[in-house]
């Protein structure tokens, strides 16, 4: 089977409008969480969120931005950055065969701002005033499709939807398709833009969100005894992955290799996590990679900062690693970025790739008092170096609906060169 390598990275997140800024912020333990100033948030039980550091509409052509939901705007910004990072051109300067390029870009909810915004317009001004672009803006495949337009991708556009596991699923899907020779190169990732009264109220009604409104930067505290829910984030993260052959033929700089993905479904509860499904997803990913749990030096945990989720994941990791638990550094970058839902998997897989490329794990901040008996080694509060040489790492994403997707990457095939 073909080897799939990672050659381009891009992201627009609550801690940076691009990947270099985001990565530096993560290493420095910077929080992207703040109070929502807008009027609509003032009577909600949760008034904090991880809002994007840079408004995507402000960094794109104004007329183009009008025709895109915010989730598509984020996706395009991140995708174009990843594409350029991979050393690839657009339009007349593209050297990629469009029929061998696919897009796999997920989202949890889709074009919510466009959907609800136009509903508001219809209620206030009537049907005639609904934007004729409402449907192409609200549909969940819009971000992926819009990216495919920009890149000229003709081998297929996929938009997996699996809540918080969407973008890991998008990565796993493209990984399989490349190995099945459906394409040679793929733009993968995820996006989410749902910081809006309705989702904030709805997640709040589920008691899923942190209510630490008086200390926003301390609200996201995965694995800490005072975690009280996640912080909603927005943004997008994308990678260019391609076959090793395709990458070497064009002299691409390589960050690492995707070696396995494991997918399971709990079939048990729509919102509560299940250790069995999580452990199995991680094992499947490792088996596919031809690795054992003892080979894993780093895990970027799903780690949402919920009292229900964190201990279950810690137990799953303990069960997976067994005696090898002390050789693996766990972290949750959600402590800084908040939970980007459909974009979380991709952002965190990128953080995992960067960690083993640069041999340093970003910290889990706000870990003042770890929950008792976690039994895993967490990079608490400061970045943790990783050993030099070959490294394998794993990223988990677990979504509402019982979706579990684990992605395993190594720094095999990595080349030195300008890395973002």
């Amino acid at each position, binding site marked *: 089977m073909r080897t799939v390598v990672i050659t381009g990275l891009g992201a627009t997140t609550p801690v940076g409008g691009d990947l270099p800024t985001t990565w530096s912020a993560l290493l420095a333990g910077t929080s992207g969480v703040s109070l929502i100033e807008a009027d609509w948030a003032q009577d909600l039980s949760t008034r904090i969120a991880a809002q994007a550091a840079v408004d995507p509409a402000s960094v794109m052509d104004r007329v183009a931005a009008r025709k895109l939901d915010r989730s598509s705007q984020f996706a395009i910004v991140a995708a174009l950055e990843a594409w350029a990072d991979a050393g690839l051109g657009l339009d007349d300067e593209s050297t990629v065969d469009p029929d061998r390029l696919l897009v796999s870009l997920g989202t949890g909810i889709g074009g919510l701002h466009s959907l609800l915004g136009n509903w508001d317009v219809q209620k206030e001004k009537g049907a005639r005033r609904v*934007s004729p672009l409402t449907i192409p803006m609200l549909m969940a495949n819009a971000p992926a499709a819009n990216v495919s337009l920009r890149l000229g991708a003709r081998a297929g556009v996929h938009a997996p939807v699996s809540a918080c596991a969407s973008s890991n699923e998008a990565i796993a899907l493209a990984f399989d398709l490349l190995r099945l020779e459906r394409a040679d190169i793929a733009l993968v990732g995820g996006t989410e833009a749902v910081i809006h009264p309705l989702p904030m109220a709805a997640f709040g009604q589920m008691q899923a969100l942190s209510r630490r409104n008086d200390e926003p930067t301390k609200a996201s505290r995965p694995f800490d005894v005072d975690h009280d829910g996640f912080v909603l984030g927005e943004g997008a993260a994308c990678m260019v992955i391609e076959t090793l052959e395709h990458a070497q033929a064009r002299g691409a700089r390589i960050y690492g290799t995707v070696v396995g993905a494991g997918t399971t479904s709990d079939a048990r509860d729509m919102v509560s996590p299940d250790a069995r499904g999580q452990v199995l997803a991680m094992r499947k990913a490792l088996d596919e990679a031809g690795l054992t749990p003892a080979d894993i030096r780093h895990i970027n945990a799903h780690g949402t900062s919920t009292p229900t989720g964190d201990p279950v994941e810690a137990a799953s990791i303990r069960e997976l690693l067994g005696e090898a638990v002390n050789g693996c550094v766990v972290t949750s970058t959600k402590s800084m970025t908040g939970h980007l839902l459909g974009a979380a998997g991709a952002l965190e897989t990128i953080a995992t790739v960067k960690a083993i490329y640069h041999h340093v794990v970003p910290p889990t901040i706000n870990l003042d008092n770890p929950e008792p008996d976690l039994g895993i080694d967490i990079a608490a509060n400061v970045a943790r170096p990783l050993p030099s040489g070959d490294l394998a790492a794993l990223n988990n994403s677990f979504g509402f609906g019982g979706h579990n997707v684990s992605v395993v990457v190594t720094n095999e095939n990595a080349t030195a060169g300008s890395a973002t």
Partner: protein
Amino acid sequence: MATTEEIREQLAEIVNDVAGVAVEDVQLDKSFTEDLDVDSLSMVEIIYACEDKFGVSIPDDDAKNLRTVGDAVAYIERAQA
């Protein structure tokens, strides 16, 4: 009541805002779709913006007959009279 040129200028700003066409290109003899490259969905938005800006009503049946900038300006003038 606005002059023809004033209406044209304000319409040009709307077309620029919605479709990115340069303001100086929005002249009376220009066809929206053929000369200015404005697509049909953008035309819909332009019509609504005109209704708001000029305080007139432009029903769909009339809107589809507004082929040039001049047609639109003349329509607005008549509607404002």
